[in-house]
């Protein structure tokens, strides 16, 4: 019988952590521990003697993990990040999904793959949700600025809303810029001129 896999997920956000843990438990027989970001990270991870460590590639504390990959590091068993072989193909997919994974040397690829496939899918989903959220926020901000610029034009030139927007759009087209950028420039300039 093979030993139950021990997986550590480094994740500060509780909700995300739970989602990752649930998905992993469905994919394999494993114990999953969640560790938040903190300065004592390496020690806390080592305490779980993990077979696999998963961490967001965008997490700055990731460099602490590199200590675990060294023979003289706090973990007795060497931990590698996609050295070569069967795991190599997974590396590219993981990096694209924004996931970094470390696992102990000699872990059978057959045991690694289901974990990695699940983690990659989960991280890719989170990444997409994040970028969609950022995009929505940005669009909302831009609309606010455009509305303010329209208001300024309507007041200064006695235009109606449609004519004000047409003027903004024409200025943007003439200058080869985005309407939102022109609107922002107008709002900033108007603020400076008081």
């Amino acid at each position, binding site marked *: 019988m093979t030993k139950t896999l021990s997986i550590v997920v480094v994740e500060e956000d509780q909700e995300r952590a739970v989602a990752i843990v649930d998905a992993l438990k469905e994919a394999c027989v494993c114990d999953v521990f969640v560790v938040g970001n903190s*300065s*004592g990270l*390496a020690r806390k991870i080592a305490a779980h003697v993990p077979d696999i460590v998963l961490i967001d*590639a*965008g*997490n*700055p*504390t*990731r*460099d*602490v*993990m*590199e*200590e675990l*990959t*060294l*023979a*003289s590091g706090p973990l007795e068993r060497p931990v*590698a*990040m*996609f*050295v*070569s072989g069967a795991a190599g193909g997974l*590396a*590219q997919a993981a*990096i694209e999904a924004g996931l*970094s994974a*470390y696992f102990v040397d000699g872990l059978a690829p057959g045991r690694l793959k289901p974990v990695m496939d699940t983690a990659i899918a989960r991280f890719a989903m989170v990444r997409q949700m994040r970028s969609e959220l950022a995009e929505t926020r940005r669009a909302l901000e831009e609309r606010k600025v455009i509305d303010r610029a329209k208001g300024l034009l309507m007041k200064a030139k006695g235009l109606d809303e449609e004519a004000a927007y047409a003027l903004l759009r024409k200025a943007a087209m003439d200058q080869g810029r985005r309407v939102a950028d022109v609107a922002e420039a107008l709002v900033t300039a108007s603020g400076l001129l008081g």
Partner: protein
Amino acid sequence: MKTTTIPAAYVPLVDAAPLIVAHELGFAEAEGIALDLTAAPSWSSLRDMLAFGRVDAAHMLSPLPVAMAMGLGGIATALSAVSVLSVNGTVIGVGKPLEDRLRALGYDFDFVDPFKAAEALAQVRRGPIVLGVPFPFSMHVELLRYWSRASALGPEGIVIRTVPPALMASALAAGEVDAFCVGEPWGSVAVERGVGALLLPGKAIWSFAPEKVLAVRTNWAEAEPDLLARLLRATWKAGRWLADPNVHAAASDLLSRKAYLDVPSELINRALSGHLIVSSRGAHRQIDGFLEFHRGAATFPWRSQSRWIAQHLCQSHGSGNPTADTIANVFRSDLHRLHLSMLDPDLPGASEKVEGAIPRATPVASAGGRLTLLPNEFFDGQIFDPSAL
């Protein structure tokens, strides 16, 4: 000339300036390239981006490509350091508890003498001093180990821990580390937040230490010699621009932007001008050559630098063969000379030198005959002769 985009990554630090300046001031554009710059959240993610092809060039800790060539740290993609981006520029500092004990001892924070600093630390420590560094493969680690071995600190007197620079202040406050070695602006940020004081500039240990390199995948360098030449020329010109003291204020403003370092311009200017404030009491120290981008052929990747790094990595990790030619070849003096000799007639004629053997600025052989190497000494007076390996 058709503009080609080169994706490049950096970690937000003052010494990423040559890439940022090459992009912002048109040095890249003049070479017909556009730099698509990405700020990496960590050194490991920067390494992965380069190794797995998400970017083609990166601002990298000088020991990192050497460590990879030695098989340390998990990823083995062959990288070439085609240029040294910066020399020196790090600081060693202590947290508040050590600072207070050093002051009580009468230590004057001279910011000059590594022997004196080590003796003072050895007197006030209660057990090994835990030092935070940004990454296991870094000049920071090698300088700290070198210093501890050759001083009153002793090799067993320090423990080195990885702490991301942005978390260094909180790690100091939480007592996870007692002291640190980081690249600017993070030392000045710690002083400004009142959590520590600066003890020594990195150059007090080794006065001409290659700190960051411009790294590319070796197979990319071979496949794209023309793009590499343009990239090298653009960053070399950016380094030359940065060497003029008159531009330090402008460069500081540029780097301080939210998209780059996002710290006050004044803190960045300290590193560029070598005018540091070493404690929250406001004591000033002026360091000549605190951070070099150009003078003394700073960009030239000496094979002997690569060998020095390899030998010290080998000592620390107990593996790898530092004498192998593949190690010296990580620092590509050949490519640097090939692509820059038209631009700079004063590149060194040699590719290796005895490290630590230049006590004062010294004219040396170059095609143009006007090259002067800057002082290059280890604080304990030792020399490193690569031919004796």
